[in-house]
């Protein structure tokens, strides 16, 4: 494929009027509720072809909107809201005189902290060390691997037996 054959990229936001943008959103909502093209065309008094065109333009509009999301800004906003929530909870804890309320605040704080950490790990901003090394899906059909698996379990068993009294029948 030569440069001249490269397909023309679509404009980021379709050049459409605000009124039509409004109609596109409404039509998208109607599609989501399960209406057919013919039914939507009857509601707006437009052709079915036009409804299909609105649907396509709606997709392009959504794509363009997604590009406007600034990841760093979004993450920053979320971090700020987590920290704000935790500050407020700390404040509530300090001001509380009832011990039960204090305990409730502490629980909320712990839950918030856990969510915050999970959020940061999910966003790749915090490294996660595996809590367990899980060996699964080993090809146990292979005699040597099965042998090794048994040897490992026997080793553990032996260690346990050394630490406990040997049982009899």
């Amino acid at each position, binding site marked *: 494929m030569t440069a001249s054959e490269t397909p023309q990229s679509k404009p980021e936001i379709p050049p459409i009027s605000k009124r039509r943008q409004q109609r596109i959103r409404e039509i998208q909502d109607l599609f989501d509720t399960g209406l057919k093209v013919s039914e939507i065309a009857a509601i707006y008094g437009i052709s079915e072809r036009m409804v299909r065109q609105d649907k396509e333009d709606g997709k392009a509009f959504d794509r363009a909107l997604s590009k406007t999301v600034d990841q760093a800004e979004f993450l920053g906003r979320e971090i700020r809201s987590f920290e704000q929530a935790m500050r407020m909870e700390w404040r509530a804890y300090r001001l509380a005189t009832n011990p039960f309320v204090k305990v409730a605040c502490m629980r909320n704080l712990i839950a918030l902290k856990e969510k915050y*950490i999970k959020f940061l*790990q999910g966003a790749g901003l*915090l*490294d*996660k*060390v*595996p*809590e*367990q*090394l*899980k*060996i*699964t*899906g*080993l090809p*146990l*059909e292979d*005699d040597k691997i*099965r042998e090794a*698996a*048994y040897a*490992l*379990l*026997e080793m*553990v*068993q032996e260690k346990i*037996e050394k630490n406990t009294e040997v*049982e*009899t*029948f």
Partner: protein
Amino acid sequence: MTGQGADLDLDLLRRDLIEHHRRHGFKGPEELLRFIRTFWGLRVPQAQVCPEHTPPAEYIVDSFFEEVQDSVCWANRGGGKTLLGALSTWLDTVFKSDCATKILGGSLEQSKKMYQHLTGGGDGWGLATDDFRYLLRGEMLAAQTALVNKSNINILTASSKSVRGPHPQKLKLDEVDEFEDKIYEAALLIPKTKKNIKASVQIYSTMHKAYGLMNRVISEAVQSGYKIYKWCVFDVMEKCVGRECTVCELWEDCQGKAKQADGFYSIEDAISEKRKVSRDTWLCEMLCFQPSQEGLIYKEFDMALHVI
């Protein structure tokens, strides 16, 4: 960082091994016995100690691989009959689909012991460990323990009612010397071959009654087609190491055989028991000789000799 350090999850490895054997079975007796050792810490004695007896491991292997259909395990007290019965049942249930087993105990206590070997209650070994719990369908009950592979176990006390009803493939009769003749006869009609699993009757008992049912079962074993697995206290005894034979109280019966043993029965226990019981009881209950004639009015009475 929330990491708590690395831990090796052996439970998953164990489950993978169970699943492997559920799909592919066992390569042979060694692998089966190794599985038993690894998963339950059970060392089923394999050594041939008394030349005329059978090592218990041979029974487990023959039972699982269905080398023998009907069998009688004649063994000493504390020789692991009930446990091995529970073990062979659990192996069949876990690794064979659609395998139904009915276990009848000679007494309520006996049935309870068998059930406890499965669940781990009381003094039971606890064969249905956490590793196998995922296979259970519903709760484990003595009356019915069902698995996801459609296999099940019924543990009942021998009665005229319990011998009626469904026909599983496997029937196990524990402590048959305590059975009534009629119930025993009716029970033999229970097992039926189904879903490629052969019908089988397996009997476990000591022979402590001179003219009891077990005596009859053993005498008629050959014509009934039962294979006899017989082991005595020396076949299941722990290996004798460093003991002086000439001063050992077991020498009279042992003659040094325990040096080859690889079992679990404590030598100290055996010595202490030998001291406590009469020679007749020792020979009958621990060495599996012909039953004691203690308590009979005429000890010297012999059916063959004195009945025309």
